[in-house]
């Protein structure tokens, strides 16, 4: 499959008659269909194409949502009457912990990725995302991790410390559920980051020619912002998880106050993730409104730049608010004031987006429809959440209602109004795109009104319940406190809400096979995803059009007909390969043709290997963990070796319109390089979170390092820094020499670089080892070890990449002209060397200053 060589491309004669043109059209379509055909029967599960994986992803996310909703209904039954004993206190703790965890990590974030994977390529005029196997890998990680975390409750082993897992309750008293939470979610975070990398590169590099950066559909802008936020928000949590699990498994006391740790550090790391997380959930849903509203107003959005700027502003500000989750931990007034103000400020860009939507509707010719009803319901609900958010940002008010049912009401208003209702509207809107069928109008009205009324009856009373003093996360309450009617109302509302959602699910399931055929572009929308006939063929677009406006279908009425005739780029697949265009970041000038990979089991197999590592380590089965790790590594190597940086059979090909485009690219023009750059940015963020941990400990201790501890000294860290720098320079030199044709010398330099890197890792670990730092004795040695270990692991990965380049060069898969592997390795080493130098400076240099 990988080495499938082309037959002669069919080239229509310039003056062919209509019949001949029809024949050639048919032949082109047949070749496209063959290249993009989804595998049949059980092999269907090996597919990687975005339109298939996207559907699986959405279905799975909704499945977890139903599960999380069922947990919530049990909780509401327990609270329906005072002093109820439907579930035990222990089970109630598991219920609310898992409810929050499932809804946040297994529904809210994945549904964004799922929807984006499905619709983004068509919207941008691409045939697929740049790394379809990575999407599939992310999906399988999500499935395995999600089942592992959710299933724990059936064994009475679910996490039970609340979804933000505050130590010391979780570290010192949590059972296996805590480890399931930590490791299961770390695994799922890998999937999220994989999807973020995929989507960012997709928006930046896979747009149709001519789609300048100011012509990108708004959804694409939101994906870009949210992808970037994931890169800066998830890594601190991964770093936190790393510290947390080191404490759980090896007793390194990061959060243990008796040995110099501090539970507040976890709160910082968690909420540096947790607050942007809210906007990571909210913005993609708003992005759906930004697509739906112009369509049903039948006019362009009234304020494209307003939306783009405020999406960027929201993303930026959301990183400066995390402390408002910690107002009652005992902070100085200056912090309270600053974070109050920052939290209020984020209301402004959010408000702008709402007013842009309203203005668009005012200026347009409104078509009343179920998606618009969901948009309006979303607005009405979300604004309540936003207004209570403005109240909560005022620290003195926050002191009163923090951790009460008022906050429960607030967060559900923001999440249901800011995420669930828009997503339901989005499913309604994009259902024809995905299936070629429409949902039922009647059931749509039922599902909306039941959900909307049920939701408000459940959560509006909770504001008052909280103000009357009911804390959150209580499994019972006395009959004498005046909360019973409010709670009963909430429970009844919750069941009405659930009924509405079930109507929606039923409608979706039924309409997949029984819905009315939608026909082409059923909403008369203006953006590219509605260009194809529906249900769409596996290959998506018949040809990739040249884009000249934000709403090409409105501005160019002949576009559909011309595209159907195969006018545009890549109208054919003469080599039988799946291909999509890579364009420049700003102007979307075509750069080269990316051959994306077709169906394969390797993503699922790799995900199983990685899943094994996380699951086995939870149960402390270290031999199995090790075996699974080897399996994962082998699978990954097979994947990368056979599936990336393939040398094409010819240097260029005709993409149509007489333009010749290269079939290979390395360095900053290739999506692989961008993916590496983006991944390493996220990785660097995790590293900086660990550095933050080091200096956090410094700020809370009068003496840091603690008196009597000699530390790793400065000699070993300095040696490690010097050796890392050497390894980096040698790698860079190897790329330079290789590009000038001397492959042998390049291999030699890479070999030397590996030696230097190994010595650097040894020196880094040698420092704390030889000075006898005991990581279980105090938070100081623990954080020094954590930094040294983290950095040494990165050097280790760097060595593997250097070895990989040598092997590719020896086997002729990397040549002076085809050197993408070496470009990516060098890029990795920029980050690895920087990390090593910073680590050395912090653990070796900083103690000299204090």
């Amino acid at each position: 499959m990988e080495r499938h060589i082309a037959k002669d491309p069919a080239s229509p004669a310039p003056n062919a008659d209509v019949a001949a043109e029809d024949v050639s059209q048919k032949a082109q379509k047949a070749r496209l269909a063959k290249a993009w055909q989804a595998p049949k029967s059980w092999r269907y599960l090996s597919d990687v194409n975005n339109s298939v994986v996207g559907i699986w992803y959405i279905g799975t996310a909704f499945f977890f949502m139903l599960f999380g909703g069922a947990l919530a209904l049990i909780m509401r039954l327990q609270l329906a009457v005072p002093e109820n004993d439907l579930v035990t206190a222990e089970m109630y703790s598991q219920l609310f912990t898992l409810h929050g965890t499932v809804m946040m990590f297994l529904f809210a974030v994945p549904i964004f990725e799922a929807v984006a994977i499905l619709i983004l390529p068509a919207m941008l005029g691409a045939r697929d995302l740049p790394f379809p196997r990575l999407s599939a890998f992310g999906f399988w990680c999500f499935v395995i991790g999600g089942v592992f975390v959710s299933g724990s409750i059936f064994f009475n082993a679910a996490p039970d410390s609340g979804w933000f897992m505050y130590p010391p309750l979780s570290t010192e008293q949590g059972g296996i559920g805590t480890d399931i939470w930590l490791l299961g979610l770390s695994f799922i975070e890998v999937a999220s980051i994989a999807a973020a990398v995929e989507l960012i590169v997709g928006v930046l590099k896979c747009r149709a020619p001519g789609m300048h950066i100011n012509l990108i559909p708004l959804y694409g802008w939101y994906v870009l912002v949210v992808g970037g936020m994931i890169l800066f928000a998830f890594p601190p949590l991964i770093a936190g998880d790393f510290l947390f699990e080191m404490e759980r498994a090896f007793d390194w006391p990061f959060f243990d106050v008796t040995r110099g740790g501090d539970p507040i550090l976890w709160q910082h790391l968690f909420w540096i993730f947790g607050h942007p997380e809210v906007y990571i959930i909210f913005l993609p849903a708003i992005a759906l409104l930004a697509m739906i509203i112009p369509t049903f107003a039948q006019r362009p959005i009234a304020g494209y730049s307003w939306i783009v700027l405020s999406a960027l502003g929201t993303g930026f500000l959301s990183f400066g608010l995390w402390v408002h989750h910690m107002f009652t931990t005992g902070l100085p007034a200056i912090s309270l004031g600053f974070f109050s103000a920052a939290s209020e400020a984020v209301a402004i860009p959010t408000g702008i987006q709402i007013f842009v939507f309203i203005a668009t509707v005012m200026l347009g010719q409104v078509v009343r429809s179920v998606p618009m009803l969901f948009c309006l319901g979303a607005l009405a609900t979300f604004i309540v959440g936003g207004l209570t958010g403005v109240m909560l940002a005022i620290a003195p008010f926050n002191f009163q209602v923090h951790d009460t049912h008022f906050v429960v009401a607030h967060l559900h208003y923001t999440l249901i109004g800011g995420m669930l209702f828009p997503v339901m509207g989005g499913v309604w809107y994009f259902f024809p795109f995905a299936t070629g069928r429409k949902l039922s109008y009647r059931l749509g009205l039922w599902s909306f009104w039941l959900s909307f009324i049920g939701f408000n009856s459940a959560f509006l009373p909770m504001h008052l319940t909280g103000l009357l003093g009911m804390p959150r996360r209580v499994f019972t309450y006395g009959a004498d406190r005046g909360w019973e009617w409010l709670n009963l109302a909430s429970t009844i509302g919750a069941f009405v809400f659930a009924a509405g959602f079930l109507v929606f699910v039923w409608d979706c399931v039924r309409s997949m096979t029984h819905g009315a055929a939608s026909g082409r572009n059923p909403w008369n929308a203006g953006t590219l995803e509605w260009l194809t006939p529906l249900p769409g063929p596996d290959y998506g677009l018949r040809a990739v059009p040249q884009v000249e406006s934000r709403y090409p279908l409105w501005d160019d009425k002949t576009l559909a007909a011309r595209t159907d005739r195969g006018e545009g780029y890549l109208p054919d697949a003469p080599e039988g390969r799946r291909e999509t265009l890579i364009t420049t970041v700003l102007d979307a000038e075509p750069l080269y043709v990316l051959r994306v990979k077709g169906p394969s089991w390797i993503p699922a197999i790799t995900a199983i290997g990685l899943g094994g590592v996380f699951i086995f380590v939870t149960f402390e089965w270290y031999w199995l963990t090790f075996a699974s790790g080897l399996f994962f590594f082998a699978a990954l190597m097979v994947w990368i070796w056979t599936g990336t940086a393939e040398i094409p059979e010819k240097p260029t090909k005709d993409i149509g319109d007489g333009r010749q485009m290269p079939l290979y690219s390395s360095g900053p023009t290739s999506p692989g390089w961008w993916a590496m750059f983006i991944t390493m940015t996220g990785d660097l963020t995790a590293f900086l979170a660990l550095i933050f941990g080091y200096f956090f400990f410094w700020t809370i201790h009068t003496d840091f390092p603690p008196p009597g501890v000699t530390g790793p000294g400065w000699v070993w860290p300095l040696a490690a820094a010097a050796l890392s720098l050497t390894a980096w320079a040698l790698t860079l030199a190897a790329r330079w020499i290789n590009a000038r044709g001397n492959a042998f010398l390049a291999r030699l330099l890479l070999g030397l670089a590996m030696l230097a890197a190994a010595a650097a890792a040894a020196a880094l670990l040698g420092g704390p080892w030889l000075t006898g730092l005991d990581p279980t004795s105090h938070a100081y040695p623990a954080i020094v070890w954590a930094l040294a270990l983290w950095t040494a692991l990165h050097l280790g990965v760097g060595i593997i990449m250097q070895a990989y380049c040598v092997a590719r060069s020896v086997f002729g898969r990397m040549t002076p002209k085809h050197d993408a592997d070496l470009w990516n390795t060098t890029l990795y080493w920029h980050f690895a060397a920087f990390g090593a130098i910073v680590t050395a400076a912090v653990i070796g240099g900083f103690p000299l200053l204090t």
Partner: protein
Amino acid sequence: MQFDAGHRQRAVLVGLGGVPAVVLSACNPVQSALHPAGADAAGVAQLFWVMAAGAVAIWIVVIGCAIYAVLGRRRPSNEKFADRFILVGGVAFPSVTLAFLLYFGLSLLPAWTETDSPDLRVHVTAEQFWWRIGYERPDGSRIESANEVHLPVGAVVEFVLTSPDVIHSFWIPALGGKMDAVPGRTNVLRLQPTRTGSFRGACTEFCGASHALMAFAVEIHEPEDFATWLEDEAAPAQADGAAFAKAGCSACHTIRGVSELGAVGPDLTHVASRQTLAAGTLENTPSAFRDWLVASDSIKPGSHMPNFAMLPPDEIGALVALLEGLR
């Protein structure tokens, strides 16, 4: 401290006071943030009503605009209008409103500094799942009690909050905001009761299985009544501690004047005079004492209090009699 601002806000509220008054009169005030009995709670409650009224108004206007946009017959058609609409609704109005809100809201932040000395200092240690309360005497020594907070009206009271196990949060809604009790840290919270009465406080940071059962009674006295109460609380008990020692209670509990060995569990010197047992979980009655002794684990899951169901009935009876006498 914010009474002046409060009066002005109250004047604003007269016009729209009807709804809250009706809602609140139907509510139980014992653990309510909207029935203030303290200076901070009063300021925040007023702030809440102002914000709530503003929020309702804003919601109506914005949703009104949205509905008009969908249903309205006569609609603007030029793009300039859109820009102005977004600028006013999305930028100008929120910026001004939020700036005012921040200014007034943050003025309610506690203004005290550590150098002002409070009228009374109370040490609160939050433990799974009860409250160790120590009233500080002028000489720095403490009067030990548990699960009940008694305060003199009008006094500035400083609570010094710590925890030996996990994070808890100390909250008396009627008096003011909450503050976390974090292991390894000492947090300080000042509150000022402004009227007498019986209230209830609770733990608001999830702290384990019985987080829901970690409450305490709050009594605000006239200053002279408080002084009497404190004198009584300071006095040792007089009782026969034989049953207490025999059952092993003394390993964890102290009854001052009778047995002063244990310090793990709540001080029981005047346990019979408290309003509740097991930190706000049971009414204080003889049968509740009995239930608690024989079924502590099912009444309060995860509690460190062992179950004494294995004791013969007469020993349980003797213990109940002893505890009942500790007034």
